[in-house]
């Protein structure tokens, strides 16, 4: 219990202070609701629009999860391939950087042409935005192993597969999870961007779709409610990665051990 209070206490306190200041600012400055709605009004709107927000949350959750899963698979596989050869790394890594710099909003309309609108296009946008941190970090982990350890295993007759399994893979895990923490949030952002540009409406509408929907109708309170739900989803993704990291590395890696700082 003490551990839980230590974990969520400080950020919860900051949240309360921010909400208090937000509420105070709205009252003191006398800002109209369409410029800056107060927290109470945003909460009321979230209740009124709960059906849309629930639908949006569910669809964005699905697209983000699929996008992150695809980014993880491709990112890890790509990193393993690139780590096997310097030549391959030099040939392909710059193109991975290019992929990272492609403006996802600009290419999203092309996805509609190629694979049709909706989930697949949205997932592709999420994938493009999320894949690079996983690939770059995992690759860094795979190639930055201690040469002495590799030499030691080689002296014992270990082959490439054994060295990969016993040295490179464990060494890359902290890097991989660092990438995952970054990409988890990016996958949600990518999904929302995709939904804004190429997402479907109605029962398949995601949170990004509702951001545009509410902004078009000048409903700033609904925009805020949608953003808050989107942010909550991003945080949930991040925490899921922290939890996964702790589960996998909690017993042996110093970053997960509770050491005094």
């Amino acid at each position, binding site marked *: 219990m003490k551990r839980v209070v230590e974990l969520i206490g400080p950020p919860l306190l900051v949240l309360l202070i921010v909400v208090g200041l937000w509420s105070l600012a709205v009252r003191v400055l006398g800002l*109209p*609701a*369409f*410029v800056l709605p107060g927290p109470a009004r945003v909460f009321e709107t979230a209740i*009124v629009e709960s059906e849309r927000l629930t639908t949006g949350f569910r669809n964005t959750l699905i697209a983000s999860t699929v996008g992150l899963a695809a980014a993880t698979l491709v990112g890890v596989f790509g990193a393993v391939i690139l780590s096997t050869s310097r030549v391959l790394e030099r040939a392909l890594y710059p193109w991975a950087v290019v992929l990272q710099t492609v403006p996802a909003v600009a290419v*999203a*309309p092309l996805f*509609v*042409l190629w694979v049709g*609108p*909706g989930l697949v296009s949205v997932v592709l946008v999420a994938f493009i935005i999320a894949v690079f941190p996983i690939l770059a970090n995992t690759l860094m982990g795979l190639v930055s192993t201690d040469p002495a350890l590799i030499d030691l295993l080689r002296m014992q007759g270990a082959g490439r597969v054994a060295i990969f399994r016993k040295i490179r893979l464990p060494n890359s895990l902290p890097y991989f999870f660092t990438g995952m923490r970054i990409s988890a949030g990016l996958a949600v952002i990518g999904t929302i961007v995709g*939904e*804004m*540009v*190429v*997402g*479907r*409406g*109605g029962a398949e*509408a995601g949170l990004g*779709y*509702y951001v*545009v*929907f*509410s*902004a*078009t*109708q*000048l*409903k*700033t309170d609904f925009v805020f409610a949608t953003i808050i739900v989107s942010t909550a989803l991003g945080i949930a993704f991040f925490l899921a990665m922290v939890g996964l990291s702790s589960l996998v590395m909690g017993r042996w890696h110093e970053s997960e051990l509770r050491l005094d700082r």
Partner: protein
Amino acid sequence: MRRPVTLLAMLAIVVAACGEKVEDDTISVQTDWFASTDHAALYAAELYGYFEDRNLDVEIRQGGPGIRAANDVATETATFGLALTENTILAAAEDVELLSVFATYQESPIGLMVHESSGVSDIEGIADLTVQIFPGQVFWEVLKHETGIAPVEIAFDGSMTAWAENPDWAVQGFATTNPFDARKAGARPRMLTATQLGFRSYAGVIFTRQSYARENPQAVQSFVEALQQGFAEFLADPEPVIEYINDKVNADFLIEVGEAAASVMQDLAVSQDTESSGLGAMNAGVWDDVAARMFDAGIIRSEVDASTLWTNAYLSSHGARVIQ
């Protein structure tokens, strides 16, 4: 604070009455999109010096994606804005008091563009299509609510390319420009305006803050008269204004697109109301109907008294005939 503002407004009226400059400050106008013939009244007034004739210093700001003129006017970032009737009503529902003073289009050119081959000509036919539209468009939300149709919807990214490739798609468009672009790209479009689909409202509506109109009646009057004069000039002879927009304001707005738009605009800009009250005129029937339907569809959560949101008081009934 209120008193000095009122005194300044009164002073401005007196100065204007003496033929001096109405306002020291520039009158800024935020449009809804990149410059085109949809903003012809503004650019014609600028081209022919009708603002200057009335001692108005006017700055026209082009809109674009993400620009919401109602927000800019409400936050006093712009003096006037240009949008649809619906935007003023949406703002009123959020306690923002805007006043519409001039309607470029008597029937909004906004609507859905389908392929001729689809054979679709009404809202019921749209039910079987995939509709590519900016999320939250009022006319569409109202029509869906009233007819009960629930076609597949896709967020519109601003590009017509995907629509051109899919004969069973409808795409949001503007009757003045998009059908021409589509034909040029090889498609055979059929434009169904919101009015044809069952939702009539005004478009290219010029509005300002109610407080600004109260404090600067002469400026608003002069501004609206210049718009009327400019728009009448444009409708009588569109070519110079199209060339001006293309040459001086927005090179991406092609002459040929402007010519195609002008041929459509005559029908959309003139009505019985404009014949009697001058170009830009509006009537209570349309405003009340739009506001009531928006409320019924749940787009606005409280009823809005539309009668306070518009006026023909600044129009010159001779506006349509200034040039002719």
